[in-house]
């Protein structure tokens, strides 16, 4: 069903312990889902390729969906608890729980193998445990209970961030509230300096250090679990790939570490965009005249090729000596050395000169030099510049060193321009010499991936040698921190295609529920599952937020003029409830306006949950403080009951779309299409 397809493939990767990279969120959420699969005995063998495909018998659907359902169910008691801890009555707390209970969207989302309900669970847990902690602060600081809730706050926060990045907004909210409380604590002059310091340190440890450690732990477990190479290897650096079982590790295992004169190497571009590729050359030459009339040097093409190929091999040559083999002992190449690069299969030298490159005319053309005996001398000396060196005499290392090749005559730098050559260049990527090296850019940096010491003097033997697989003798390991940093960086920068999805929507549609998502349609009947909210609850939650804001500013202005409508305790409670519920809604909703990724209705659910919690707060406030006569109060009470039964009715009406358990007739479906923009699927017979 819908995004289960997406999460399912990662579960399968976990089951098979294959490395993958998912830019949408940290691994904790995926791991939780995979835990369900593990307990259910899932072997990972299922092709998650089509929405609506029938699950085969080896997929333990029940246990896979158990965890989201469990967390979704726990939201109800947690809502109750939060309202109690905020200092509201049992009645209001029950109201909050009952509202969460009949929210169709939350139910739909919780019943499937999706992460939103897990995220909301941790969000609410963070808020709840912080409130418990703040309340026990008044009674017995530093008690066991106090420590427990404080640490739980930190842990819940990091879990929320670990499930989805958007969890960070709730974390920031909790931090802000904790910061304000801590600031009051600093101003409390009844406490000694030492005691204040202890308080602050305890908070810092639990709310900053613990989450950071937990977050690292998630990645540690993730990297331990997925240790085999898989389809996403190519995005990672060579060093990272070498740390995975199988794949590149098998090839590079035992390669010599230090590149020496006479080494045979493949050079991979570090930037790897639009695709990871290796420096390549082949027999074809640049066309004499390009389509737009510019001329070329007509020398042998040099490109970047995204597949492993024997033409990717280059030999590092000392300009002062002839042999193309490694001497004994090998003479390593160091930072700053001048080298020539010889293409293995054609024995031509890597060359660049003042001729405009085919697609980037501001840069120099890079070619393999062919001597046409015209006045164009070869310029094939390159200076080696190791970017990540620690000392100026560092040796060029396989995989680990990131190098720039600077042309000696023109000081141009070898660069991947990212453009695809036309048909004469076989659609491979263009490589150019960048004259104006404006600082560091990864597209100019290369690293040696495969490497061996060249042994054969003769060209024929050498060709044979190049065709044979590389084999070697040293192995290396990347530290966990380096792997974590690289993985995290790639996850944040990997580009998801931002094209619009059929069911994507804009944040403005969410408040008014102007959009829906069709999750699933029964292959034969018209039973279907939709992500649709309980429209009564959505509308009244939005209204409650507006009422809260209005009342809040009204009271604030009046208090400034020293007119106190509310007793102090009541006012503080009202502010704290607003800060957490209205604030929780705002921080989980407003940032989406700045995001450029594809957005769906379910992104609104965390914000909605907080907004629903605000509803009983406002209702109780109106009943207690604005309805002055008992008559008014009872009228208001009955209105609330009527409103709630209305919400129940809507829930019941939309129930077939929430559970997808009953096939509806086209007429019934058409009747359910309350808004034009709801994409309810009606079969045409």
């Amino acid at each position, binding site marked *: 069903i819908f995004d289960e397809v997406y999460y399912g493939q990662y579960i399968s990767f976990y089951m098979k312990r294959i490395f993958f990279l998912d830019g949408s969120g940290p691994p904790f959420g995926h791991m939780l889902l995979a835990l369900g699969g593990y307990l259910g005995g899932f072997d990972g063998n299922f092709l998650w390729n089509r929405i609506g495909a029938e699950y085969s018998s080896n997929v333990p659907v029940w246990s896979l969906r158990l965890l989201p359902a469990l967390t979704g169910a726990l939201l109800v008691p947690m809502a109750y608890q939060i309202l109690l801890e905020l200092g509201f009555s049992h009645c209001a707390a029950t109201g909050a729980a009952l509202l969460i209970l009949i929210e169709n969207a939350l139910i739909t989302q919780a019943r499937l193998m999706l992460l939103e309900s897990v995220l909301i669970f941790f969000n609410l847990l963070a808020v709840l445990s912080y409130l418990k902690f703040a309340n026990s602060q008044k009674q017995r600081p530093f008690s066991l209970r106090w420590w427990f809730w404080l640490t739980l706050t930190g842990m819940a926060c990091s879990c929320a961030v670990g499930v989805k990045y958007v969890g960070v907004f709730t974390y920031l909210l909790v931090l802000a509230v904790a910061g304000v409380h801590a*600031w009051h604590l*600093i*101003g409390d*002059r009844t406490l000694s*300096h030492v005691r*204040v310091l202890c308080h602050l340190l305890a908070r810092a440890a639990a709310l900053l250090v613990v989450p950071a450690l937990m977050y690292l732990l998630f990645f540690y477990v993730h990297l331990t679990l997925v240790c085999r190479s898989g389809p996403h290897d190519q995005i990672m650096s060579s060093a990272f790939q070498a740390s995975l079982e199988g794949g590149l590790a098998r090839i590079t295992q035992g390669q010599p570490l230090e590149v020496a004169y006479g080494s045979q190497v493949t050079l991979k571009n570090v*930037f790897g*965009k*639009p695709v990871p590729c290796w420096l390549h050359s082949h027999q074809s030459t640049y066309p004499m005249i390009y389509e737009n009339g510019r001329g070329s040097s007509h020398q042998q093409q040099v490109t970047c090729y995204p597949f492993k190929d024997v033409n990717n091999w280059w030999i590092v040559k000392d300009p002062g000596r002839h042999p193309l083999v490694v001497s004994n002992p090998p003479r390593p190449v160091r930072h700053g050395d001048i080298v020539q690069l010889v293409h293995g299969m054609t024995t031509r030298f890597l060359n660049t000169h003042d001729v405009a490159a085919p697609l980037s005319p501001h840069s120099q053309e890079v070619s393999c030099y062919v001597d046409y005996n015209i006045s164009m001398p070869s310029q094939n000396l390159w200076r080696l510049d190791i970017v990540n060196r620690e000392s100026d005499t560092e040796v060029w290392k396989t995989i680990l060193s990131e190098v720039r090749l600077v042309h000696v005559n023109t000081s141009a730098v070898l660069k*991947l*321009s*990212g*453009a695809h050559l036309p048909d004469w260049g076989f659609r491979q990527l263009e490589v150019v010499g960048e004259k*104006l*090296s*404006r*600082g*560091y*850019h990864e*597209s100019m940096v290369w690293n040696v991936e495969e490497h061996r010491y060249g042994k054969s003097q003769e060209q024929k033997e050498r060709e044979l040698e190049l065709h044979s697989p590389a084999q070697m003798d040293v192995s290396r390991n990347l530290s966990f921190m380096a792997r974590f940093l690289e993985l995290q960086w790639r996850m944040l920068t990997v580009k998801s295609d931002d*094209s*619009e*999805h*059929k069911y*994507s929507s804009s944040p403005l549609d969410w408040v008014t529920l102007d959009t829906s998502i069709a999750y699933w349609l029964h292959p034969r009947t018209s039973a279907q599952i939709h992500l649709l909210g309980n429209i009564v609850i959505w509308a009244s939650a939005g209204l409650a937020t507006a009422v809260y804001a209005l009342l809040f500013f009204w009271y604030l*202005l009046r208090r*400034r*003029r*020293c007119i106190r409508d509310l007793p102090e305790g009541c006012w503080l409670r009202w502010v704290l409830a607003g800060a957490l519920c209205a604030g929780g809604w705002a921080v989980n909703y407003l940032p989406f306006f*700045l995001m*450029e990724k594809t957005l769906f209705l379910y992104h609104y659910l965390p914000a909605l949950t907080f907004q629903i919690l605000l509803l009983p707060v406002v209702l109780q406030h109106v009943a207690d403080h604005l309805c002055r006569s008992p008559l008014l109060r009872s009228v208001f009470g009955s209105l609330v009951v009527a409103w709630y039964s209305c919400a129940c009715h809507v829930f019941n009406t939309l129930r077939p779309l929430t559970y997808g358990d009953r096939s509806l007739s086209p007429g019934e479906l058409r009747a359910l299409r309350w808004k*034009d*923009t709801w994409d309810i699927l009606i079969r045409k017979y």
Partner: protein
Amino acid sequence: VTLLSFATRFHRLDEPPHICWDETHFGKMGSYYINRTFFFDVHPPLGKMLIGLAGYLSGYDGTFLFQKPGDKYEHHNYMGMRGFCAFLGSLLVPFAYLTVLELSRSLPAALLSAALLTFDTGCLTLSQYILLDPILMFFIMAAMLSMVKYNSCADRPFSAPWWFWLSLTGINLAGALGVKFVGLFIILQVGWNTISDLWHLFGDLSLSVVTVGKHLTARVLCLIVLPLTLYTATYAVHFMVLNKSGPGDGFFSSAFQARLSGNNLHNASIPEHLAYGSVITVKNLRMAIGYLHSHRHLYPEGIGARQQQVTTYLHKDYNNLWIIKKHNTNADPLDPSFPVEFVRHGDIIRLEHKETSRNLHSHYHEAPLTRKHYQVTGYGINGTGDSNDFWRIEVVNRKFGNRIKVLRSRIRLIHLVTGCVLGSSGKVLPKWGWEQLEVTCTPYLKETLNSIWNVEDHINPKLPNISLDVLHPTFPEILLESHMVMIRGNNGLKPKDNEFTSKPWHWPINYQGLRFSGINDTDFRVYLLGNPVVWWLNLLSIVLYVLLGSIIAIAVQRGAHLPAEVEGLSQVLLQGGGQLLLGWMLHYFPFFLMGRILYFHHYFPAMLFSSMLTGILWDTVLQLCAWSLASPFLARGMYAAGLLSLLLGTAYSFYLFHPLAYGMVGPLAQDPRSPMAGLRWLESWDF
């Protein structure tokens, strides 16, 4: 201070005598004002208008073409425009001096801030050329200064100086916003200051609510109404001056273009009613969408059907031309033997693209970006297609059978087979679509401007041309429209992949400069780079300020009793410094959220604030150190020594780096023979 500032800014102002960097844009736009031709730019008009005015007054005739950086000015008088920018740029230093003096009441702090700005090569370079930045920074600093001045008049509300500074703040805000939208940040700063000010007044129970109301009204008048009026006035002048058709016409609606003399819609005389066989252009009614357009390129593989692209395009182009044909016959309606037949509301028509002879077509395929809509393509050969090429033409709010009027009729095109409506989503297509806008056929019949079009050009030799008095748009309409176009233009400035772009975190560390002119060792080179000593001192000061500020704030919150001197100093540090820190943050952090392409020079307004903060901070730190020393003689000595070393240090670093700003010829800095050898402290600087 003022003299020194003017001396440094005007020194060798005439060099280099060729176009540097963005002078090519802003000089050109200045010329447009002098020539009164209409153009389009993503920035509001005030800055360019002032440049144009300066050029006009100094005798520049607007004939220079400003084609590309490096072109020689020759006999053209460019000094007036440069001099004007340098004049405003020079005023930044005295403004900073006065602001700091007002905030800290300490002459040394003000001197230090002024020195930092005078000796900063970056500010100097930026002030010497025909750019918007000196004008923008002038207004920002002037607004800051008048705000600070007016704050210190707070004890005499409604007095003459109070009114003067308050309204001056408003005027400068209008100026800042009128030059670039970045001026919004200083408006936020003033807004914040005003709100907290009002909050204090409101909490003061000795003032009646009526008095507070008066305060509020005064601020609304001076800080909202006045700036808005002035800002609108600049647009009024802009539209009044630019009354000739120019390169910016196509960005605007048909009605707007009719105002411009030289445009083909000005005093238009075209056939009034649409007839079969007419050649037309179709323009979307929503602002800044453009003309219905097609070209000889197919949709790429995997995006709908591989047929010819249909887009909307803002520029006038022969690919915008379409021919109206009857749906069931391919006969040439312009054949003289046929009678003229008018197109009527509700007719079924075909639209044939004139250049490629393909029909406007739609079918049940997802549109390239808006997946909920259907794809629109060009289909068929020489006008022969299929039934998916049929569209019903409807005029909004008209009865069936009416003729369709050029320019005035608001038409909808409804696809006959699928029942969807032709519209533009306003989304920018990727590279394969040449970054033109997407055209879709939307199955939702909701009435929005996106799916309503009008006919703009109309050519039909068989019909008599009549003069059309097009509805003139009102001024608010023009104003709104030009803002929509500007916002769209700003969003369109996106960086490309595999290209070096400046990142906001580069800026405060002075990571990389901008080449203003010249590359090779024989060229006259000017390189925009901050004086590293000044910039790194600023960076250090911000860290130190946050540290010191939090220590003092926590001490106060803990109820520590500070000695009177320290109390005074910490007041200056927290309040005066706090305002400057806020200014720095407001002018810096929003750039992290911007998706558009960014350049190094965007940091300079923030840099002004951080230099002023540095002045206050070091003065306070030195005074605190001096205070903690026992002997008054030693204390005074230490204070003077510290201040002098800071002043002389910046002056000396300016002596070292001045060739960056005043220009250098000769070998590049890597070369040991270069005068700049050894000064390339970061490898990323390339001068």
